[in-house]
């Protein structure tokens, strides 16, 4: 079976405070950058074998649902790399 790379991006829901993002934004402003928002998420790159890119994406999505993201506070999206 061919191998695929899939990237799962996990982000906090917009309604959720992100103390790490706020702290980072504060420091960026302190450094003189103009920035109106920082939200810190997670980039998870998976290497997996599957019959098709579509199947790889489905499996990666299940991994995200069952472990990589917590639906109470996070959203995720999956991208299969060519």
């Amino acid at each position, binding site marked *: 079976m061919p191998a695929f790379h899939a990237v799962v991006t996990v982000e906090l829901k917009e*309604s959720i*405070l992100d*103390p*790490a993002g706020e*702290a980072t934004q504060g420091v960026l402003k302190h450094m003189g950058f103009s920035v109106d928002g920082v939200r810190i998420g997670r980039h998870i790159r998976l290497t997996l074998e599957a019959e098709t890119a579509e199947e790889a994406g489905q499996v990666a999505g299940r991994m995200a649902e069952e*472990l*990589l993201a*917590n639906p*109470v*506070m996070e959203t995720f999206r999956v991208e299969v790399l060519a």
Partner: protein
Amino acid sequence: MQIGVVTFPGSNCDVDTVKALTDLGVQAVVIDYRNHRLDYLSAAIIPGGFSYGDYLRSGALAARAPVMAALRDAVEEQKLPVLGICNGFQILTEAGLLPGVLRPNRHGEFRCDWQTLRVAAESPYFPGLRVGDRLRMPIAHGEGAYYTPPGSLQALFQAGQAWLQYTDDQGQLHALTNPNGSVANLAGIQQGSVAALMPHPERAMHRYLGSDDGHKLLSAWIDGIRQEVGHARV
């Protein structure tokens, strides 16, 4: 009766918890996270620590360990009483055995301090703890901000699941006594036979160490286990 203290890679309050239970006259056994069977236990504690280095999200990896599937079965089939402490609370929410989730502290600091709590709901698993009772215990966590989605808080209180709240020394609730940014100052949650709190009762077992309110909480729990599972298994 035999109470299991479930230990994961990175748990570090397991020995203190075993000692606390032993002080209370209970036989405590350490349960390895690879265990598949818990049906011989009268109850289980998930102790504090940093299971799996808090990687991914605190409690997330431990929640998928084999022992947690056994724990879920025991809760669903036998109403096994379970108490989560600190990281144990995080693991139980990640496992879906308690509602909500614990997030990094609002102020971004690890908070290690004494904290007064108030009992917000009674439970058959903690006879002797009455609404309004004050308990003083240590807290020590970086990710203790309890969060529950908008609109779900009222149901949590109505169902008696909002169990413990952070207060000032007089037992008064206000924002300034919230050490981590938890919604509604929540420090502990319960659901059925499962309860958990961020503070450490096992570190408040003797007056000469600052407080024996942890002794009070754990002995109430043991009384509750004896009454709930009674003759059958204890």
